[in-house]
């Protein structure tokens, strides 16, 4: 008679604890699925989202395959105790291409902007243009043959000069961009888009689609001083 209440309490406490755990787990699952964002989407947006995730999945899955293949190649060389130089060279060549250290050729558009008597093109105008081209999916860009890389900055030096990659350039500004040319062009020429805006400002601007555009490689040194290794 004396033991019973204790046993009951302990049983209840344990059961409650288990129940609470289960519930918390379930809450978490429901929270994680993050349905809110897609809740408000329309059908075409949903279709686009599916296509988007699918493409991302396929890219990642290909990249995973390549990476695993590469790991295997290194392992094999390690086991046979032979030089891995060739493998590193291959990876390095890819990285150089990604960064912009190789010349590339492809279809795209060429934008030409010129100063006029009253107005000269500002670094900010070019910065906006580069950003617009990136939004439209451009894969490689150059301004007056200066390759735009992840280290590239654009600064006004005087009314007539703009500095790109520590090189001074001046009007006419010729911006080459490789990517889907129709898409690139339409992104710039939509109503009240970049083209309209610059024309309204009084600049002379021209956009042409072109095949086999050649874009120069980045010519400056690539070194690290502040990133630790």
């Amino acid at each position, binding site marked *: 008679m004396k033991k019973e209440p204790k046993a009951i309490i302990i049983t209840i406490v344990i059961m409650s604890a288990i129940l609470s755990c289960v519930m918390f787990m379930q809450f978490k699952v429901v929270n994680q699925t993050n349905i809110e964002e897609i809740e408000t989407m329309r059908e075409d947006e949903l279709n686009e989202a599916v296509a988007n995730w699918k493409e991302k999945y396929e890219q990642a899955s290909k990249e995973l395959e390549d990476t695993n293949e590469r790991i295997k190649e290194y392992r094999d060389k390690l086991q046979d105790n032979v030089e891995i130089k060739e493998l*590193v060279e291959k990876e*390095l060549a890819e990285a150089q291409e*990604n960064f912009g250290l190789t010349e590339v050729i492809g279809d795209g558009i060429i934008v030409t902007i010129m100063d006029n008597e009253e107005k000269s093109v500002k670094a900010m105008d070019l910065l906006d243009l580069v950003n617009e081209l990136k939004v439209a999916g451009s894969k490689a860009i150059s301004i007056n043959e200066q390759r735009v890389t992840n280290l590239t900055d654009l600064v006004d030096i005087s009314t007539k000069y703009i500095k790109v990659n520590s090189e001074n350039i001046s009007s006419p500004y010729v911006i080459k961009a490789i990517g889907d040319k129709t898409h690139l062009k339409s992104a710039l020429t939509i109503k009240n888009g970049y083209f309209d805006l610059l024309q309204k400002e009084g600049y002379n601007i021209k956009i042409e689609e072109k095949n086999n555009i050649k874009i120069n490689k980045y010519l400056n040194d690539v070194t690290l001083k502040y*990133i630790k290794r």
Partner: protein
Amino acid sequence: MNKKWIASILGIMCFILTVAVVTQYKTVKNASQIAGTNINSDLKTEVLKWKEKYEDIYSQLGKSKKELEDVREIASNNDSSSSDLQHQLKTLNALIGTTDVQGQGVIITISDNNSITSDTVGVLDNINNYLIHDRDLLILVNEAKNAGAEAISINDERIINTTSITCDGNVVLVNDNKISSPFVIKIIGSPEAILGAINRPGGYLRNDLEPYGLVNSVEKKDNISISKYGGVINYNNIEK
């Protein structure tokens, strides 16, 4: 005494359990309402399915990349002819944005000025001046690069060569991902050069953002960590 104790403990427990059950019932009901009944529910499941598949494979990819780095490191330790190449490769990957990086630099925090609303803003003033825009971020990133920045992120979105910064209603899109105020810009590079450029009188931060109360802090830091780009870099369009 004993019985009262048991009764009250039981009472409290029952109460808590009831609350939990009710809350959960509501949550599940909400969730199924969202996913259920209308025509689009299949599509919604499809979106979630592909998103999950992507997230799953992406985390596998992260592990594989790490493994590749390790095995490459081990392999080049045995092979002096390729250690220099490996060094160059690491440098490029850090600059491209495919690896996590650490180093000294500057952290800038800017945010919308919430003390001004469309009701309290002056007649000749514009509420837009009190909000951070995509262009503000674009300009600061460009200034940081001008000061020799080696790696930059905004709210943990790594700036890579194809990164665009645009606005989408009330949020900013960086790498096609939504971010919003406050914006934390991490920059690795020479702290002196970056502080000099960012803080200069007449510079963008001091001249165009600070007067509107948009600047929270500009701090020099000895050890900043910037994570790698959260996607796959794809350069398929380019011929060689």
